[in-house]
């Protein structure tokens, strides 16, 4: 629990500018981030700038640290006892690892979607309204209803579930569950969405739906997605970072990474010579 709970300044977010998103502002900046699990160094000095209203993909072979790095951005690593993070990670220019930033409030602003769909054993409605309720986002029941509906629409799930909001979320299909989890994250009104291999447990049709959704989410959020699938990274992302053994070897516009990478390792990876 942080010593000081003085609320940070309310930063007015600029109204979405759909058309001119060519030079979006920097949402998250990291400098020389190291992560240690006990003695093991999992991330060895990563410096990245993640842009707002952009989908950024982290790719790289298994165990290269992309998920670990992703979990640093909303301080999920805090929940692991032996994990230690050094370096700075800034969001909107403020270091999120200082004492006056509360991880609980931070995570409300930086939503996360996990590899395996993990709906709570509650109704669909309760799943989506969970975040707004605990954070006290809705002023009244009507507003809460509106948030739920809008989030489900945003996750392209509304039409499928609007008649069974009181059914358990665990009863949905895998793709629906994952979209429910996205709706759940969106309902908390985050500014950034982190997605840790969100499609790895889904079939191709569900994957396509979720990918489409991710592409649309870019309009409102900074989206960071970890993926194993190069095609997916190419399809949904505008920027791509290539992780290798805990370091970022290359970070550039997605088309450039896939067509004309500078680094040899990147070249080998994207052409499928190892992975």
């Amino acid at each position, binding site marked *: 629990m942080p010593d000081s709970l003085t609320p940070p300044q309310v930063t007015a977010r600029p*109204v979405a500018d759909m058309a001119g998103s060519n030079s979006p502002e920097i949402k998250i900046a990291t400098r020389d981030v190291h992560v240690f699990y006990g003695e093991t160094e999992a991330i060895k000095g990563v410096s990245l700038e993640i842009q707002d209203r952009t989908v950024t993909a982290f790719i790289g072979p298994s165990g290269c640290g992309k998920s670990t790095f992703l979990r640093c951005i909303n301080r999920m690593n805090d929940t692991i006892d032996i994990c230690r993070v050094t370096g700075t990670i800034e969001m909107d220019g403020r270091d999120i690892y200082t004492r006056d930033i509360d991880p609980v409030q931070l995570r409300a602003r930086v939503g996360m979607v996990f590899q395996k769909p993990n709906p709570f054993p509650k109704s669909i409605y309760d799943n989506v309204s969970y975040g707004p309720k605990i954070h006290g986002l809705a002023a009244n029941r009507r507003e809460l209803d509106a948030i739920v509906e809008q989030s489900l629409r945003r996750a392209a799930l509304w039409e499928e579930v609007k008649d069974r909001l009181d059914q358990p979320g665990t009863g949905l299909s895998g793709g629906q569950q994952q979209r429910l989890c996205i709706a759940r994250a969106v309902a908390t009104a985050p500014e950034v969405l982190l997605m840790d291999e969100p499609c790895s447990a889904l079939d191709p049709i569900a994957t396509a739906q979720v990918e489409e959704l991710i592409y649309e989410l870019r309009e409102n959020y900074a989206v960071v997605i970890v993926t194993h699938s190069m095609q997916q990274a190419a399809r949904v992302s505008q920027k791509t970072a290539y992780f290798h053994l805990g370091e970022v070897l290359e970070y550039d516009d997605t088309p450039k990474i896939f067509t004309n990478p500078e680094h040899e390792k990147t070249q080998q990876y994207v052409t499928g010579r190892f992975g």
Partner: protein
Amino acid sequence: MTATIDMTAISARHTSAASGARTRQRYWAQIRLQAYGILALTLAAAALVILLWTVVAKTATVLFEDYLVLDVQIDVSNRDLTALNDPDPRINVALNGVVRDGLRAEIGGGDGLGRREVRQLFNLVSTDAGLELGAIVKRSVQEGAPLIGARYRYEALLDDQVQMYLGGLYGRPVDAGSDSALSVTRDGEDTSRAVLSFEGGAFEAAREALRTRRAEQAARAEAEAARQQAAVEATEARIAALGADTDTETVERLRAGLDVYARAREKALENARALMAQASDRTTVHSLSESDPSVLVRVQGGWIKLDALGPDLARGTILAGEPDVVATAPASSWQGWLYETPETNRNISDRQVVWLAEFEREGKIVTKPNWRLLESSDSSNAELAGIWGALVGSFWTMVVTFLLAFPIGVMASIYLEEFAPKNAFTDFIEININNLAAVPSIVFGLLGITVLISGVSLFGVDLFDGLLKAIIEDPRSTPVAGGVVLALMSLPTIIIAGRASIKAVPPSIRDAALGLGASRLQTATHHVLPLAMPGMMTGSIIAMAQALGETAPLIIIGMNSFIQEAPSAPGDKANVLPSLIYIWKNNSERLFDGKTAAAICVLLVFLIAMNALAVLLRKRFERRW
């Protein structure tokens, strides 16, 4: 459709002041939840600490036992001599006469004592003191250095009540106030009585205690008077309510009752007044009865028990010694003792208190570690009772349990994990095992007493006799019966643990063995079983530890009988440690409280040792695949 909502505006609420306050509240909720958890753990720990403390504190009272050193002259009768010379160790000799003579000699002959006082003297030592001396003498005879005819320094075990008194469990006398000179004179012609004269200040504590007591008694008498008054009023009301047609006999009876109540009331009131007067008047001469606190005076080498106590004069009976009746004893050369518990309320008489005080002064009471507790078996005399018999009984019971439960448990786990086909029969076995694990232990006791001991009959038809009768004439109370019952109880635990450890052996090892052409039985016995063995042993030891503490089924099959000999075979009648704890706890002799706690300590030590062994085994052989 609901109106769309501006999520951007909602998002801004995360960083609002309200959100900060809310977060603080949410963290408070978290702290509360953690506090409940810590409180719960603290309560559990406190319960454990208090429990262990109770046991240890009670045990501490019996860690030592007290002996009285007697200088005895070992003269034996001819009959005893024959028995002493007999090499058969089972023939015991009780040299009670020798011990009694020793006790008499210790108090200077005790010629003037009545029967009751003599019994009190003899009761100072344990009933087995003569027997134990006999054993010592017999050993000396057998070893060729007979003590017969010699004087011998014998340490006689003291009676349990005496040991409790010496241990302070019945309260000890306190100083009655001894700071003034005290002169003793003879009370007329009676040589057994004495008169004490002293100045103010002596016996002040005792007089204070007596005044308090009188006030209490006065209050009780007043309460009694009030009760009688209520009876009077009730009877008067009944008489007033009688109709005119009531027969005279009833009226007479009621009037007579009225008189009785009224007289009783008057008597109680009078009594209360008198007592109150004694309580408030500092110059009263209190007369002390047996139900009053005792005041004992040690002066000029003798003991006097007061029966009247005034502000400067007291009278009493000489309990021991012959106090010099001429000289005046200066202050603090004498002692006045106040024993608050009245003589009628304790198991130790004033005379015994006095004798023991003298023995203590002379250093004739010695305290030794109580090895008897471990070495002897059950006895109805608290000072003689020990746990050895029950320990051996527990040992045999555990042997039987282990020999049955372990092989059967291992075989059953192998069958269920390696061979059992998936069918209704196997399912039925599994359901049975799971349910047996939760059947109350007392039901296993009922199973044991019928199936193993007395036989089963259904609708008046005898189905079969007690199964164990085929090998033991009377299987009740035997470790064999107890062992079988505990084995049946432990089986589910052992099987569940066994199956878990077999499951932990990776299938690759089975595949490898089967691939080399081994049969499934060979695979199971040669490859899987050795790897699963440590886990099975661990589970079995834990099950054995549970069985060792099990009580209810064993008392049902009669292992709570009073048995004074350690069993020499599993077919002999025996107690087990837990059932001994149960028996002793039910005994009213208070020394058994401490012995019960000591038995619990021993039981806990064994349990801890067994569990430690299981943990060690697990650590030593733990393998991660």
